[in-house]
């Protein structure tokens, strides 16, 4: 799976939880889930669970701690996919 494919899947995952449509429409790697997309911090766990389901990976606690923006999420997904 390449980067554009991952980012497209990620966008589908975060969409139900975002509160800032403009930030979502202009999403880049530097977009922050909480400060930019204004995802409720309790919903970040849903984003993480959805990522686990969609990519069939397990996000360990240490990785979860960094899961605050698109760039970190992509790095973690790519790393976990490469371990399969």
């Amino acid at each position, binding site marked *: 799976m390449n980067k554009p494919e991952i980012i497209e899947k990620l966008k589908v995952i975060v969409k139900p939880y975002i509160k800032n449509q403009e930030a979502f429409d202009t999403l880049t790697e530097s977009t922050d889930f909480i400060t930019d997309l204004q995802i409720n911090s*309790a919903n970040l766990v*849903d984003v993480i669970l959805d990522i686990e389901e969609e990519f069939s990976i397990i996000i360990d606690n240490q990785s979860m701690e960094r899961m*605050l923006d698109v760039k970190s999420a992509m790095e973690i997904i790519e790393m976990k996919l490469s371990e399969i």
Partner: protein
Amino acid sequence: MIGNDIVDLVLAQKESNWKRKGFLDKIFTKKEQLQISNAQNSEVMVWNLWSRKEAAYKIYNRQTQIRGYLPLQLECFDLKIIDGFTFGKVVINNTIYYTKTKINTQFINTIAVKNIDDFDTIKTLENRNNIQKNKGIPSYLENETLGYKPVSISHHGRFEQIIFV
């Protein structure tokens, strides 16, 4: 140092399914999960513990400048109810934060402090005038002589609370 958090219980019910598989494991320690399953109202306990972690994280974030999604590291201890408030501690990396939580049918509101005496001197602001953010961390200009003071803002659904000491 202070931090606060407010959970609109009606909105939380709409936004989150805490019974979802894996949900509790990602954010609560085994001991906390036991408290949730033993609670009279498990859903209220979920948001009670969550609001403590969030309020404590706001102090931790301000103190250390570390940003992270750390619910498992922020562990809740020693819950007890005094005069209708639930008091407790949240511990992360051997640092203790004290929490005071108000629970009713509409919301759960936690205030966390580093110094327990600060509970007595907390002030509330009605609006965001004279508040500025630096790296996402808000400060309040009380007056020109005293300069900026740490302020904590929480907003969820129908409720907003802004506090400082």
